[in-house]
């Protein structure tokens, strides 16, 4: 028994099996992810426009694309806007999600099950479906939101919510947060139910109040879950593209540019693929800096 288990667990020399088993996945990831990353980095140092596409080869321009991007005042405005937009969505969705999850613990079972069902329903909505519904709710004509506002006594027939970028971003962000809330709430709720009862009972016996219980027991145990959820939210919200694109009829005005839209417009709109690549690379590096912690956390879990 011991010998065999040893063979199963620690036969590490000259065993080709693990390599054979991972090679198909390495092949797929290599072609579709690693090569494009390499290509993205190379493109960012090249002038790559329509003529270069036809020739199939870019011209090396050194750091020109980055210099152009960083000296473009428009870029800094867009970066700032993207960070604010992302930060707002992450903050609202994580705070509301965590709050709902805690409330769910104290809800009557019937309400909790209904809420859980609604959250799953929302979670399952395809992105394009949820965007379509939200567009309909805030449409120029016959929208339910305008009707509700009118019924409250304000006169605003045929209001275009997207003329004002603030209300526009508010609606787009609302749609993104609405779609993200179920994942956040259900994950935190699942983690909350895993907090060992013995610890809570012991704390209660020792006379801790609910705030102390949260601070000294629940929060430290849930911290890794919060970190994962916040990091994932940052990654998802930072690159929001389809929402802005579809809400604004596939031609957003420049006040609606976020970094993802900007990179897209530079490359697919203006055919400056080198510039677009440089902007995309800046976007990836920004994200890696922000979410480096998540990666380390996941690595720890993977090595166990």
């Amino acid at each position: 028994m011991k010998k065999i288990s040893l063979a199963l667990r620690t036969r590490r020399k000259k065993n080709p099996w693990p390599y054979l088993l991972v090679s198909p996945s390495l092949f797929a990831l290599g072609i579709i992810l690693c090569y494009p990353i390499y290509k993205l980095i190379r493109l960012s140092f090249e002038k790559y426009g329509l003529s270069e596409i036809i020739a199939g080869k870019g011209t090396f321009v050194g750091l020109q694309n980055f210099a152009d991007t960083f000296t473009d005042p428009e870029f800094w405005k867009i970066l700032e806007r993207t960070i604010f937009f992302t930060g707002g969505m992450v903050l609202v969705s994580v705070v509301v999600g965590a709050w709902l999850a805690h409330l769910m613990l104290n809800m009557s079972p019937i309400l909790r099950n209904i809420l859980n069902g609604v959250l799953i329903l929302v979670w399952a909505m395809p992105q394009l479906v949820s965007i379509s519904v939200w567009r309909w709710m805030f449409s120029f004509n016959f929208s339910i939101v305008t009707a509700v506002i009118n019924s409250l006594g304000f006169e605003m027939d045929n209001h275009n919510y997207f003329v004002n970028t603030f209300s526009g971003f508010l609606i787009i962000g609302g749609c993104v947060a609405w779609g993200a809330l179920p994942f956040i709430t259900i994950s935190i709720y699942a983690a909350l139910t895993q907090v060992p009862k013995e610890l809570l009972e012991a704390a209660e016996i020792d006379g801790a109040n609910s705030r102390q219980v949260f601070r000294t027991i629940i929060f430290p145990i849930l911290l890794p879950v919060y970190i994962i959820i916040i990091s994932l939210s940052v990654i998802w919200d930072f690159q929001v593209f389809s929402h802005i694109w579809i809400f604004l009829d596939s031609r957003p005005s420049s006040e609606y540019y976020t970094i993802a839209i900007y990179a897209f417009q530079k490359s697919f709109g203006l055919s400056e693929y080198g510039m677009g690549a440089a902007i995309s690379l800046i976007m990836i590096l920004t994200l890696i800096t922000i979410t480096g912690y998540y990666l380390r956390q996941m690595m720890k879990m993977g090595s166990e």
Partner: protein
Amino acid sequence: MRKSSSLFSNISGVIAIILMGFPVYWMITTSFKPKEDILSINPTLIPRSFSLSNYTQAVTKEGFMQALLNSLIVVVFTVVISIFVALFASIAVARMKFRGKQIYIASILIVQMLPLSALLIPLYLLLSKLQLTDKLGGVVLTYIAFVLPFVIWTLRGFLINIPVELEEAGLVDGCTRPQVYRKILFPLMAPGLVATSVFAFIQAWNEFLLAYILLSSQDKATMPIWLAGFTNRFGTDWGPLMAASTLTALPVVIFFSLIQNKIATGVTAGAVKG
């Protein structure tokens, strides 16, 4: 942990149910309203009359059958291939020790973090060089790569919860390695395999951005692209769009409600320690 339910929690719960559920409610009720009720300055919360005309209009709209077929093709190939590839990889990661395993795991986690919209440019250039743009095969290839990291990671999670001792017992009783996999490991993994395939299904069914960039001709459109086509220069036909949205969401809702709790725990599995 559970105290008796509090009034404040229950009131907040009702508000949350109404606010979160309203868009879905509004989509479904709109889809059953006749046109004159939709185009009204005073929309009613409860439909006054019931009509299926939006559905017939959506289903007979140009390209519906083609988009449905395209989506099904893309989904089936993505799911089958990615599950096979991921199954092999997850066995290696969960059960075997090999040099470079740490790097392999790290790279899987890193690529999961990559923002898709940042890779659009090189992906588009790569696939156009391979002459795979405007082909369903090109889309399938990219979808496989994008679902693989998550599928491998989740399958690994299911695998490490199956005790190695079961396999060891099989070996002791004289099974060969392939027999151990076929008779002991795979049956135990079946629920995990179903859950992750449904996940891959949903991802491939819902994806919009890559398909939007890679597929240009109308007869290659997938369901999300077809949905986006309801808005044109003359505006949007809301009734049929809501009917089409309901139809697009339906399969996902059904599958999703089946696997939801498995995936929710899969993402954060092992993060909480008692």
